[in-house]
């Protein structure tokens, strides 16, 4: 369970987070969506003790990240936005040192390393130096490392940024599997389809403020079911409809070309933030 109450963060003149409230249930897969600079990483850094909050409260399974830092940190695992593995060490050594940092005994570290490498399908890279791995494999090692101490909460900060579409899907499958094994997952992304595909609930963050919070389905339904895109003086205009009949009626009056499609999460996001995500 993750609880954020009245969370604020100022960096000198910038207010990166404004009164963020969140309540994420145990075992939930929660997506935190927002354009670059919205404050997603800042939120994760605060929840993992990397950045000090300016005001407010953060609880991870009842442990306060400021008051009870060591206990709170044990609850969670972090996959940061940028790769931060030890490039000159092997995959197994990276996991082993992580286990040591979380006070795991030698035997448990060995068996967990083997288990996770198998889980991530990278057993054949166990003794490879990290610097020789591709970006997608490094991401998988990062996830394996974060799971080493069996955290109850997993923070994933843009886990698929910069990866090929097929590798991205592979990471999605892994994330789903981790959730099915009972871990609470907090995922940030600026790929909307990622949130739509994976998350049970989504929060839209814009300029440090949460502008919407609901299931992807509800957020989309608020827009309607059908959408028509058409070019209007070199601007893309989209109109939403609750029923197919309504959409058809609208189409009959159209002179320009247009496309009819189902409403997606991006429509909800664009309407609520007035911005393109990418």
């Amino acid at each position, binding site marked *: 369970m993750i609880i954020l109450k009245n969370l604020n963060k100022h*960096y000198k003149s910038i207010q990166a987070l404004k009164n963020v409230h969140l309540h994420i249930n145990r075992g939930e897969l929660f997506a935190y969506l927002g354009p670059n600079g919205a404050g997603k990483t800042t939120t994760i850094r605060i929840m*993992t*003790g*990397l*950045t*000090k909050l300016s005001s407010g409260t953060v609880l991870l399974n009842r442990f306060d990240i400021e008051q009870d*830092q*060591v*206990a709170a*940190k*044990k609850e969670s695992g*972090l996959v*940061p936005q*940028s*790769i*931060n*593995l*030890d*490039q*000159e*060490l092997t995959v197994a*050594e990276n996991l082993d*040192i*992580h286990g*040591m*940092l*979380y*006070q795991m005994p030698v035997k448990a570290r060995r068996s967990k390393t083997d288990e996770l490498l198998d889980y991530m399908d990278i057993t054949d890279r166990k003794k490879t130096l990290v610097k020789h791995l591709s970006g997608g494999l490094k991401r998988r090692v990062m996830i394996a490392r974060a799971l080493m101490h069996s955290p109850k909460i997993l923070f994933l900060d843009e886990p698929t940024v910069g990866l090929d579409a097929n590798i991205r899907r592979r990471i999605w499958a892994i994330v789903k599997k981790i959730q099915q094994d009972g871990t609470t997952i907090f995922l940030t992304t600026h790929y909307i389809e990622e949130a739509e595909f994976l998350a049970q609930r989504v929060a839209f963050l814009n300029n440090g403020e949460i502008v919407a919070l609901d299931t992807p389905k509800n957020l989309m339904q608020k827009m309607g079911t059908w959408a028509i895109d058409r070019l209007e003086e070199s601007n893309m205009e989209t109109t939403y409809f609750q029923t197919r009949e309504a959409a058809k009626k609208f189409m009959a009056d159209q002179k320009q070309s247009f496309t009819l499609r189902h409403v997606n999460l991006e429509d909800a996001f664009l309407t609520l933030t007035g911005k393109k995500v990418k």
Partner: protein
Amino acid sequence: MIHGCLAIYYRELMIMKRRLPKMIATMSVSPLLYLIAFGYAMGENVNVDGCSYLEFLLPGLIAMSSMTQAFSIASEINIARFYWHIFEEFQAAPISNISYVAGEVLAGMTRAFISIFIILILGYFFGVVLSCNFFFWLAIILNSFIFASLAVGMAMLVKSHADQSMFSSFVITPMAFLGGTLFPIDNLPIWAQKILFLLPLTHASKAIRAASLGNRPDYSSYIILFLTGALFISIAFLCVNKARD
């Protein structure tokens, strides 16, 4: 606290293990040049403080190297922090800041000790065998402890790798030359001696030289080194606390 410190130290040892051949080669170059240029070339007939210059120089090189090598972890920490972002992995881990400092300081001291073994072996080939007694090692432990602690503190304060190099060029390198390592400071003017007396390395050179040549230790040097070490590690601890943005 112990497990965190061991994890940090173990990581540094694993990295050192991979680089050991290169490290040994790099650490041998400058002492070898000093021994050839100042010791060997100047010949046996130059006497300093009642011993041959080589005998005078070798403990000085040990003091110098235990300082520079212990301090060199600053750039390792910097690269890990600014370039590889590995420092975040430690910040997110449930370990105390003091265990982080202790682990890195131990790593710096280990580097210092590796370099000292290299110098002792080189010295042997140049015909100088020092007395490696308790007070010799104690002075080295204190000296490497001081500069490894300073390194951790500096690495947390600087905002970039360039700042770090500047500190090295303006503080560490001059001290390496002037701190009683290459020439006795007794012949300098009193005001210069007074300034050099403020540098921890001056006391370390004096203590290491006295012990290795079998002279009676001057306890005041050890007390000064100990107090400096206690001060520097406290500063390092405060700096790690400050490193959270």
